[in-house]
């Protein structure tokens, strides 16, 4: 029980840190504006004439997250190292894992909150038609898992440096790879010359491939496992990096 209490304390502090700076509000506003703009103006929500959020809304999420999630995650460890509070945190009677999980959960919850705040779009689509709300819910779950995967990658890059900007750029590049590996134009290009198994391997690394199922309302355990293992692996890498710094 002690473990959980420690994680909660860390997460609470971290969430407080988001909301005590303008970052949280700026992030939420930008995210909601982007969602609104792309869904209705670019995504052709009305023109499609279908009561669904799959293409018009969720399709954009991997791209929004590409820039927004690293912005949320970049300060997690970089800031602690820059200010020196890392020394304070890791000499408290908690394990490194509790700190990592606590910080990750706080940011993930924050991203979840931003996602929940897009509810007017769900209301709109329900008002205009009769969508399958199960599919929408599964889309939200997938979107949140995907955000978690991006965030965990940002954790690694944030632990690697004491400069937030460096952390941001590196994690954008890594996340971009995870998107492009399954981005249709890239896949088509790959199919042109690579053998099918190679294409499969590459696309299986992509968040888009695994997000696809959620968007269609299919909760495939393999997709869930993909995101969870990506998160687990990334957080583990974070702990290795943190230990490496301390060992000098």
């Amino acid at each position, binding site marked *: 029980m*002690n473990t959980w*209490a*420690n994680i909660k*304390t*860390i997460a*609470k*502090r971290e969430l*407080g*840190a988001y909301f*005590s*700076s303008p970052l949280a509000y700026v992030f939420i506003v930008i995210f909601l504006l982007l969602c609104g703009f792309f869904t209705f103006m670019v995504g052709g929500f009305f023109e499609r004439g279908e009561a669904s959020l799959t293409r018009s809304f969720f399709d954009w999420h991997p791209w929004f997250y590409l820039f927004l999630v690293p912005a949320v995650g970049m300060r997690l460890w970089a800031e602690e190292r820059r*200010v*020196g*509070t890392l*020394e*304070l945190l*890791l*000499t*408290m*009677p*908690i*394990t490194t894992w509790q700190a990592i999980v606590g910080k990750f959960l706080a940011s993930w919850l924050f991203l979840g909150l931003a996602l929940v705040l897009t509810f007017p779009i769900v209301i709109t689509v329900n008002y205009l038609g009769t969508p399958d709300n199960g599919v929408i819910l599964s889309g939200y779950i997938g979107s949140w898992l995907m955000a978690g995967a991006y965030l965990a990658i940002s954790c690694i890059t944030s632990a690697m440096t004491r400069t937030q900007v460096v952390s941001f750029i590196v994690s954008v590049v890594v996340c971009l790879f995870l998107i492009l590996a399954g981005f249709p134009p890239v896949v088509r290009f790959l199919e042109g010359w690579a053998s099918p198994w190679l294409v499969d391997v590459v696309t299986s690394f992509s968040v888009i491939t695994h997000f696809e199922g959620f968007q269609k309302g299919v909760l495939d355990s393999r997709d869930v496992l993909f995101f969870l293992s990506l998160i687990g692996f990334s957080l583990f890498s974070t702990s290795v990096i943190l230990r490496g710094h*301390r*060992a*000098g």
Partner: protein
Amino acid sequence: MIKVENLTKLFGAKRAVDGISFTVERGEVLGFLGPNGAGKSTTMRIITGFIPPSSGRVSVGGFDMVENPIPGKRLIGYLPENAPAYTDMTVSGFLGFAAEIRGLRGEAKTKAVNRAVEMCFLQSVLHQSVETLSKGYRHRTCFAQSIIHDPEVLVLDEPTDGLDPNQKHEIRSLIRRMGEKKAIIFSTHILEEVDAVCSRAIIIDRGRIVANGTPPELRRRSDWAGAVTLRVNGMVATAVKEKLSQLRTAKKVVAEAQGQRITATVFPRTAGDQDLTREVLEATRSWQVEELHTEEGRLDEVFRSITLPDTVKEETK
């Protein structure tokens, strides 16, 4: 409470800490002295479990800080160098967090925060964000964090750095008071602090312990220990010097004239020799001595004589 055995830490090829051993018991305040880069902070970071040693063992309250660090960490309050604190929190929020992570909840937490705030004089900035605090307040906020759970062991890395003389005085008397019941290690390069606070001092240089003892013991190692300084009227400096140089236990005499008055210092052959004072008294019975006193020795001089040769050697290379 704190037991350090044969501690070594390598950063690449550089030996930051090189075979350090010492213990600190409850009721002791150990001053950690040394030039910059001597390995003070590294040693403290290893003791608090922030970085692992390359070899050697550290235990706090009987708990090994590498194999089983959590119970040891519970006993420790730590003030890192430069006193870091979460800048985005208020002072009370930060202390509340520190209390919670130490397992204090509800009323116990409120009590602990109030106690620490009172001891560190933080009432006036309680609801201010850490970011806006002056250096002195930020320092005390971090100090408050380290004593929030009334720890049995305190590790303080330059606790008076950047404070004004009044604040320094407050913190020193606080350390001295707490030192009666706790085991405290603190590092400093202000030597007067050692006298004011420590029951024992260790001087380290380039990762090694070069002196370990109580402040009077350390002072006795100085050339000044046992030296006699006197002020004489109506004599010639050379005469004073000559006469005093003939004393059996005198090694060297420095005499200086200021108008009619001569100030002379007689250094003993062996540091801390009590006979010198007696001899000087006898020899000067017929003189017009205005003032005479025996030096206890000077810590700064001991510090320099122990740590300087190395630094100089390094530079001439």
